[in-house]
């Protein structure tokens, strides 16, 4: 059944920065394939008279006024940081 989905688990894992073994890849391929097939049932519904929408509710323009407020201090912002220094989050060096 799994081969009917065009899901490439190894590729998606790479995009998500996940390491999966070959065994895991086969397991996820089957399981995620089942999920996708379940969702694909929606394609059987006749939607000829339904307008395309990005959202389930026909609701628009939920805006916020441009009024600033303060929230965190630097200490509060950094509370969950595994590493910090000089009020900055510190991560492994990244250079694109």
């Amino acid at each position, binding site marked *: 059944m799994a081969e009917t989905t065009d899901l490439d688990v190894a590729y998606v894992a790479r*995009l998500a*920065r996940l390491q999966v073994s070959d065994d895991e890849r086969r397991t996820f391929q089957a399981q995620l394939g089942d999920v996708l097939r379940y969702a694909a049932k929606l394609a059987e519904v006749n939607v000829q008279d339904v307008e395309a*929408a*990005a*959202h389930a*509710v026909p*609701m*628009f*323009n*939920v*805006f*916020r*006024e*441009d*009024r*600033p*407020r*303060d*929230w*965190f*201090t*630097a200490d509060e*912002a*950094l509370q*969950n940081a595994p*590493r910090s*220094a*000089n*009020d*900055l*989050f*510190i*991560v*492994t*060096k*990244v*250079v*694109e």
Partner: protein
Amino acid sequence: MNYIAAIGLEVHVQLKTRSKMFCACPNAYGAPPNTHTCPTCLGLPGALPAMNEEALRMTVLTGLMLDCDIADVSKFDRKNYFYPDLAKNYQISQYDAPLCTNGRVPLHDVAYPQDAQTAIATSGKTVNLVRIHLEEDVAKSFHFETTTGIDFNRAGTPLMEIVSQPEIASPDEAFAYLTSLKQILICGGISDADMEKGQLRCDCNVSVRAATQAELGAKVEIKNMNSISGVRRALRFEIERQIALLESGATIQQETRGWNDDAGETFLMRSKESAHDYRYFPDPDLLPIATHALLADVRARVPELPAAKRMRFVEQYGVSGYDAGVLTHDLAVAAYFERAAEHSPKPKSVANWILNDLQSALSAAGISVGDCPIPPEALEELVGLIDAGRISGKQAKEVFAEMFETSRPAGVIVKERGLEQVSDVAAIEALCDNAIAANPKPAADYRAGNAASLNFLTGQVMKLSKGKANPQIVTEILTRKLKE
């Protein structure tokens, strides 16, 4: 072989809102690190975004100023990628329903680099746009020896992206495009658009092909330019590099290159193989936007654009097209000119004083027109004094210099220095009589046909008047008297 270049620019503009795009943290530069943060812009679990209406208005306003089509309905999407400057692992952006599409940026001659203004290939060109969309900016990274430090103050601030068609043909045109665009953005109060402060950032897509070839060559993207002249230099280098490659028989690879301004060259950042797959999908946390609710309000905010201002200056004040271009190039200069010229009977003279003496005095002093020590009304007064014949052009220069130094009004300086030109005919007649009587020989020479003697006599009268007599009137009276 002849080669042609095709350049497309992606310009990112920081919007001048007071708060961020999807949360109410302040949108302000220069605060201590991570003090403008909250659960939303730090990407903490469960935090929900809420759209800043003013940022949407500013983007629609930009679209109207640039003659874009405004989408009836627009929405935000998630652009997924991993990078430490992006806490949520996705950036809220717009994929297939941007707020604005199409549109154009007109390139004015004065917007070209000064050394290229005499040789503009296509004067009056307009560059078409693909789209304008709104997204959130990412955090700022500081790269240290072995680690990277992240400040989230900028994360989530509104960032507008303006994408041009690959219709820009040269580095000079790219310069004119950015200068013209910047001018319009400032004019609309959208952004201060200073590239050196990162308020305007630009990625260039450039390809080169044989002039005989119809389809575009392989596209190379250049990043990291931090000034408009840097963009021009980077493009010059890159176009030459690509032509040299083609000449040597090599093919151009699609790749991303960085610009090193100190070395004056581009360098490889990444090749096509590592291109991103962003897996865009609509952000379920944000509802779509129906722009009709914004449009009426935004239409009323469309300002007089630089091109319209130029035309009006020519019609209303009688200045040349070129002078109008220079005057409107900087909004502050245009406003200064209008205040000085408003009630002046000689707006053209006012323009000349601004374009010559004032501009060079300002640049010599290193100050902007906003801090000009001479208020516009005072410049108008000075021009009025010259126009009324009360001081000569030469004296006006002296008065101007003192006005610039002391900020005192022209009238006061003229009186104090006793500069006022004497145009009182009776007084000058008496002085002329004295001069003729005291110099019978030059007077006789003139009557005998030696025209140069008149200059000598004029000089004598000027001396008697201590330089205050109006020289034109002196010459007239002397000529008349010597013929009697």
